[in-house]
């Protein structure tokens, strides 16, 4: 019975758990409950992935209404892969949360904080599971509203302005998406993704469809933090609580990449893909280089990683720009691998914040020797970020370069390599300050971070190494997903 309702339970279980969590008293109880819910979700997500890995599709009719009239949950390899990433990151982040949240969130807000995390999880999983564009918008709002709240819970007062900035930008993005959905609904009279795809084919040249497409792409690009629309991201990641930086950096933008892929390739496809292709390539090239350079000049470790995230997202956008099988495979593989490396890096920085109380790089001097485990986690995840062979980052860069070479695009190959070189500089900046600078004499002794923070960090770091050698899960599933997207270009 569970297998039949698998795709639904993944969304409904955290949805029911969220209000229950909000009613639980104290600090430990809400945490324990949330932890078990995320682990159940991970179990369901991996089950779902194993079912659709071979290329089959699960369809679920909500309320017993048949699609295209009712809401349909439609799971193929791509949904299942992204849902697995979201559930896995949540399951790894929650053990990390207990100590970190104790330090950063006042007790009377703890249960609400965990409830908001669960709601954010509901939203992200819902976006991935649903096969209905309006339902997707609703889940996008659930995840966005809860993430505004979560970012605003940061300890510094600037968290409030960061959340407000994100609120304004995110709302504009969501509104654009809704306007676009409204326009294509007016043209076709349907909201089901597959049905939309069929009904849009004959009227692809209508101006309304073009306008709707433009609104949808720009709206998602805002959520995605695509290069010129990225301004909300650095503040949001810098000032939010450590746990939220980890969770959002590893999941939120990845889910936005998923929405973009779904909308462009499943809903619209055909002639309009060519239109986005050039835009994605140009913005991707600029977006890899400029944010990487900004990252080099940052004085705050979290902000540095945030700028690096924008550059990494641009790699995924480059892959979408190729619109080829290899390019999209690279995008999906990088979605997976980037979640692993940024999750690990933000966790390690969070461990330092836990001990030192600040993420400013000037306070990191000499910490490498006092916190050796945290330091080596940053080092290995940093190498993965650069794309050193043997780490997960190498696999995605490799496929991206292959995709660029396949189209004989030397410029983009050069840009990808230049991006890696710039990554060397900003990762080295953290390493140099942490390891080669002496400890300032005024600073009191700093101990290694507690095990409950280190173990989740190292789980992600080892995943970085594991997926650097074993590409069966990432590349094969991504390949199946791209085949199902119906991309015909080589």
């Amino acid at each position, binding site marked *: 019975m569970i297998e039949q*309702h698998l795709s*639904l339970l993944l969304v*409904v279980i955290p*949805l*029911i758990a*969220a*209000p*229950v969590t*909000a*009613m639980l008293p104290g600090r430990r109880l809400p945490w324990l409950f949330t932890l078990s819910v995320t682990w159940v979700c991970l179990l369901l997500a991996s089950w779902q992935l194993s079912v659709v890995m071979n290329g089959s599709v699960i369809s*679920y*009719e*909500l*309320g*017993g209404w048949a699609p295209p009239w009712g809401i349909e949950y439609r799971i193929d390899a791509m949904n299942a892969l992204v849902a697995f990433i979201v559930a896995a990151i949540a399951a790894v982040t929650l053990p990390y949360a207990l100590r970190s949240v104790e330090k950063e969130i006042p007790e*009377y807000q703890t249960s609400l904080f965990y409830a908001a995390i669960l709601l954010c999880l509901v939203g992200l999983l819902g976006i991935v599971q649903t096969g209905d564009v309006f339902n997707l918008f609703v889940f996008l709002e659930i995840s966005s509203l809860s993430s505004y709240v979560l970012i605003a819970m940061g300890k510094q007062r600037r968290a409030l302005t960061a959340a407000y900035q994100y609120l304004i930008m995110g709302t504009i993005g969501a509104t654009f998406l809704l306007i676009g959905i409204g326009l294509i609904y007016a043209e076709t009279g349907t909201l089901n993704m597959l049905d939309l795809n069929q009904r849009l084919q004959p009227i692809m040249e209508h101006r309304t469809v073009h306008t709707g497409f433009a609104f949808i792409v720009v709206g998602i690009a805002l959520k995605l933090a695509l290069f010129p629309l990225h301004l909300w991201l650095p503040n949001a990641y810098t000032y939010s609580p450590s746990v939220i930086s980890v969770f959002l950096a590893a999941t939120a933008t990845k889910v936005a990449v998923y929405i973009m892929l779904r909308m462009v390739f499943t809903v619209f496809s055909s002639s309009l893909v060519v239109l986005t292709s050039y835009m994605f390539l140009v913005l991707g090239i600029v977006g890899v280089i400029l944010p990487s350079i900004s990252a080099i000049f940052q004085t705050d470790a979290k902000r540095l990683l945030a700028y690096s995230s924008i550059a990494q997202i641009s790699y995924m956008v480059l892959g979408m720009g190729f619109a080829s099988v290899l390019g999209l495979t690279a995008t999906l593989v990088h979605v997976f691998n980037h979640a692993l490396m940024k999750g690990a890096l933000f966790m390690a920085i969070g461990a330092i914040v836990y001990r030192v109380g600040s993420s400013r790089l000037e306070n990191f001097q000499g910490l490498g020797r006092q916190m050796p485990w945290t330091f080596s986690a940053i080092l290995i995840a940093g190498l993965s970020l650069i794309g050193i062979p043997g780490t997960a980052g190498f696999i995605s860069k490799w496929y991206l370069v292959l995709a660029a070479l396949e189209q004989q695009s030397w410029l983009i190959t050069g840009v990808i390599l230049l991006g890696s070189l710039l990554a060397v500089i900003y990762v080295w900046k953290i390493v140099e300050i942490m390891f080669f600078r002496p400890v300032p004499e005024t600073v009191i002794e700093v101990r290694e971070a507690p095990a409950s923070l280190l173990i989740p960090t190292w789980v992600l770091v080892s995943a970085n190494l594991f997926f650097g050698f074993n590409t069966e899960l990432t590349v094969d599933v991504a390949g199946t997903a791209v085949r199902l997207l119906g991309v015909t270009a080589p």
Partner: protein
Amino acid sequence: MKHNLILRLIAKFLFPVIALFAFYVQFHGDYGPGGGFQAGVILSVAFIFYALVYGLKTTEEILPPHVLRLLASSGVLIYAGTGVVSLLMGENFLDYDPLSSEPAAGQHLGILVIELGVGITVSSVMLMIFYAFAGRGQP
């Protein structure tokens, strides 16, 4: 507002009228315009009006914030719980057919229960927002 007798009397008089209208909109929702969202807002308006005249403190004694928090959560649980009941009865999530002996009656009952959940959550969240703005500075 202590000395404003007319206003205080009218507030007391209007409270049940507004609440009654809220329940009308709530339970008439499946025959005419209405439903949980509108009814929830109207019901919270009754309390907000009361609070404007009699003060926040008196209102918080009638409906304390922690009760509102429980109500807001339980509304969502009623909604999702209805879906789970139909799951347990062997149908898809939120398929109300098995809730009663015949499908039409089941659909009727299902939408009524779900709108009740929506109404409870909306009215308590509206009041929570009002409390948060009116009582600025208190945790």
